[in-house]
Structures are given as C-alpha cells and as structure tokens.
C-alpha cells in the first residue's frame, strides 16, 4: 500500500477505517511556526485548521465597543442595543490579543469575561431578540483558502459554536460562582426558552455546514461531565447533536464534538449520540476516561485525543512515557488520531518528543511494535 498523505491518514481513521500509521497533527491555533514544527511535519505530523463556513449578520441590533475601566481593570465592553433593550459584556484581554491570531494572547489564552452578557432576568428577552435577528450566511472562502494552503498536509474542519445550553453556560451567563446553575434553578423558563430560540436560529447554520467543503464539522462544545451532568446532557445536548447529524449525514459529513473534560459520567450517553468524532478527549489525569476504555465504549466512534498539557509541564521524559502509555492503551490503534494539543502552545522539545514516539506508529499497533518504538528513542 502506498504511504498515505497526512490528510488521507486523518480522514481514513476518522471514517473508522485503518490508516497506514497512527495519524497525529497539530492544530494551527496552538502551533508555533518554526524549525521544530517544520521538522515534526517532515516526520509525519499533520496540520488541522478550524474555520467557519458562515458569517452572521445582526438585524435591528447595533453593536458598539468601548475600552473602559471597571473594578480597576481596563476591559473592553461590547454593547448590543435592540428595540427591546440593551445588554453588554466586558472582557479582559491579555497582552497580544488581536495582535496575532484567533483572539488569543501571546500565551495562547483567550480573553476573560469579567461581565457576562446575561446578568439578570430582564436580559434574557434582549438576548432572545438578538438570537432571533441573527442571520447566518454561507461563506466557504475561509475553508477553501485553508484547504488550498494545506493540500495533503492536513485537514480543515468547519468550526461551530457551542450548542445552545453550552452557549449559555460557558458564554452568555457563565459558570463563575455557578451562576448558570443558579439561573437555571431560579429562572428555568427563561433559560429553556432562550435555548429553544438559539436552537431554532442555528438550523440555517447546520444547513450551510452540510454543503461546506470541509469533511468534518466540529462543534466546539467543551463538554465536561462535571459541569454538564447526565441529566443536562440528555435533555439539552443529545437532541441538538441529533438535529445536527440529521442535517449533515445526507451530505456525508462527519460530526465531531469537542469533549476535553471529564466525561466518564457521560460515557453511556455519549455512546447513544450520533457523533462521529469525540474530539480533544484527554486521558487521565486531565480527563477521567482512559482512551482505550473510551474506544471500547464507543465502537462506532472515532477519538481525536488531546495530548495533555499537564504531562508537557513535567518535561520531555514524562511526555515520552505518557505517549508510549497512550499507545499501549489503544492497541491496535484504530479509530484514533492524536492532536499535539487542544489547549495551548507546545514547547519545541515536547513537540519533537511526541513526534519521536508517533512517527513510527504503524498500524496495527502491537505490544512488540510499541516496544520497538520505545527502544528507538531510548
């Protein structure tokens, strides 16, 4: 069999078939362009982009941004004014934000919300108005452009926002001090009504994605079973994934969902979803579900592992040990791809160490082949 390209390798594994080697790749948003990155790419590392297939346009909503001092800190306040009232949020931006890419600081951190969009019950009606006056329009240029740049060196995913409840929990209401849970307990009708409005507004976005040039539609849901308990997952998340899959499937798109938290408590429910790719799954200790156990629990799903930053923090020897342990946990290595990080930038030394382990991970993996890999980098 001729050697697969990096793109073929990732997509073959993502469709549940056996690739020639275990695919591994670096997300562009966490990638340091430079000599180490080039070296690792030359040794088999692929690249992955996350770009949207749509733009949004707000109708009857004006948006302004100001730099203000709040609580002694300089923040950026974005205000949305609608015929039914105004809402605003504040964010604190670390150095570098807006100066390189992806709304991230030099240290790869996104801005911190210091004030959320929804603060009190009256804000729900305003945000609902905004949601109902958001138009989604197809714009495939960003994906086509990145595909053209990458060629066979990797894949471009079509990135989507959090599903409705997660949009409230993580973005608009926020979970600081457990605020979302308190809102949901105190104002269940407001929360659930807004969730339904968001879900309805997103249907055109899914239809646009179905015709996207990207093979993988990635919902950036940041699922963590501690925050998203099984009751919430079953009631609010699973139906949304069903909706997405029902629109994407006829167009042969793969649905991936970003699940980078502790998901053991959701394991059985995840098995029942139509998700194709569980993306960013972290092995213990950052996650709580060993990758081998996850693959066994989800026989019709593919796992894209997020290599854990907690291991990188311990240095290259710990990184080597963890990478080898990961291989031993997933023998024979099917239905799997490994992302160098889904969290932050990886040091050159760690990037090269993971590459040293993975560059010779031919499939199917066996205990003997992993021993040989270990000896080759001893």
């Amino acid at each position: 069999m001729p050697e697969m390209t990096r793109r073929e390798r990732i997509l073959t594994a993502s469709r549940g078939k056996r690739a020639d080697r275990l695919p591994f790749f670096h997300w562009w948003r966490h990638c340091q362009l430079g000599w180490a990155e080039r070296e690792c790419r030359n040794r088999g590392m692929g690249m992955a982009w996350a770009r949207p297939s749509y733009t949004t346009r707000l109708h009857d909503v004006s948006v302004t941004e100001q730099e203000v001092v709040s609580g002694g800190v300089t923040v950026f306040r974005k205000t949305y004014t609608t015929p039914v009232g105004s809402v605003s949020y504040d964010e604190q931006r670390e150095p570098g934000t807006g100066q390189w890419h992806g709304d991230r600081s030099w240290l790869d951190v996104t801005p911190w919300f210091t004030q959320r969009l929804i603060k009190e019950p009256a804000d729900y009606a305003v945000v609902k108005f905004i949601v109902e006056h958001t138009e989604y329009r197809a714009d495939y240029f960003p994906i086509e452009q990145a595909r053209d740049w990458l060629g066979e060196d990797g894949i471009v995913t079509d990135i989507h926002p959090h599903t409705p409840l997660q949009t409230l929990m993580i973005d608009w209401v926020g979970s600081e001090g457990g605020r979302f849970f308190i809102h949901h307990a105190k104002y269940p009708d407001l929360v659930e009504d807004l969730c339904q409005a968001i879900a309805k507004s997103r249907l055109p976005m899914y239809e646009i994605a179905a015709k996207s040039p990207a093979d993988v539609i990635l919902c950036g849901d940041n699922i963590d079973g501690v925050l998203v308990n099984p009751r919430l997952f079953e009631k609010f998340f699973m139906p949304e994934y069903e909706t997405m899959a029902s629109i994407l499937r006829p167009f042969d798109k793969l649905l991936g969902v970003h699940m980078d938290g502790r998901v053991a408590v959701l394991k059985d429910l995840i098995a029942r979803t139509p998700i194709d790719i569980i993306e960013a799954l972290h092995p213990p200790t950052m996650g709580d579900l060993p990758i081998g156990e996850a693959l066994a629990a989800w026989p019709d799903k593919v796992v894209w592992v997020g290599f854990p930053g907690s291991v990188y923090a311990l240095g290259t020897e710990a990184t080597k040990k963890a990478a080898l342990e990961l291989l031993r946990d997933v023998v024979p290595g099917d239905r799997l791809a490994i992302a160098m990080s889904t969290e932050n930038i990886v040091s050159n030394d760690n990037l090269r160490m993971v590459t040293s382990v993975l560059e010779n991970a031919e499939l199917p993996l066996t205990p003997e082949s992993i021993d040989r890999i270990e000896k080759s980098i001893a």
Partner: protein
Amino acid sequence: MAEDKYLAALRESIVHLDFATIETAARQAIEAGIDPGTAITQGIVPGMTIVGEKFESGEYFLSELVVAAEVMKMGMKVINPHLKQADRHIARKVVIATVEGDHHDLGKNIVTTLLITQGFEVIDLGVDITPGRITDAVKEHQPDILGMSALLSLTMTKMGETIENLKEAGLRDRVRVIVGGTPVTPEFADIIGADYKALNALEGVKKCVEWVTPGKGGQ
C-alpha cells in the same frame, strides 16, 4: 419538638434546593426563639451535609451542589445578623485562591462550600491572585491550610511561585498547602513542594478535615 420542626424545615429547604422556602424557614426559626447557632449547626449544616452525601453518591451533581450553596447563603443572610460573637468563632481556617492569570473559580467555589459545611472558616481571595497577594493573606490570616486552584497548565506554575514566596517569607512551615485543578498532577504537586494534590473537591476537603483532626494528622 417544635424546635425540630423548624430545624427540619431549614434542612429540607437546602436538600430540596428550594429558594422559595429557605428565607421563610430561617425567619420562622429565629422568630420561634431558636438559637441562631443551633439553626446553623443543626439546620443549615446538616442540610448541606446531606447534599454533600448525595453529591458523593452520584445522586446530585455539581449543579445541585451549587444551587444548594446558594440556598444556604440565603438562609445564612437571615440568620447571620442574629448570631452572637461567640457563635462566630470557628477553630480552623483556610485561605483559598485561584492563581494569577487564571479566572476559573468553579472548582474553588465548590471546595469553599464544602469546607464551610465542615466548619472551616474560609477566606476566599478570588481569582487571578498573585503569589504576593496569597503570601500576604497567609501572613495576615494565619490559616491552617492554603488551597490553590488552576485550570490552565499555563497558570499552574504560579502555585510553585507562591510556595517559593511562602518560603522566602518564612511562612511555609506554618501552613499546609493543598493544590487542585484539572491539569495539576500529584507529580507536579511534589515538584513544587505542595503537601497534597486533591483529586477532586470532595477528596480534597476530606484531606483538609484529616489535617485538622487531632490524631489524624492535625495538631
């Protein structure tokens, strides 16, 4: 017997996560002449203990724990003004913070809630707290335990810097240090010189209780 009725109402408001009844239950307890300290120790705290047990057994999740704590706070708001100074004395103290550069506070807040249910006084410094500010707080409040939290592998190094600061200030030997957060591993805790890495909120709080319990590691 009447006292039991009022204390049970407090407990049930918390266990049932009932915002609608907690203030009335607290007010009625006070109006019925129940000692405010008793209302807390035999009404509020047992309610939170049951919630903690349900959380531990998997019947309740984080959402219920958070809401129970909020209900508890509403009850405490009614009872607190009636507390005598003597009732406010709490033997053991914890200073807790999310470290510099990190604004995640959910884990820290859960631990704080659970510590309160175990009778600790908790000085919660908040989020994005520099090593210097944590060190100053340890100096000022002289806690038995310092808890630090981080959710980012980028920020967890600040835990180590804080421990170094404590050493330089001559405070390290006076306080036990427990660290927690998703990226924090026991190996990392060892490297930075922390005393313990909490696997999760419940387990971490148990360790804190153990540390302050005579014969189990406490003095």
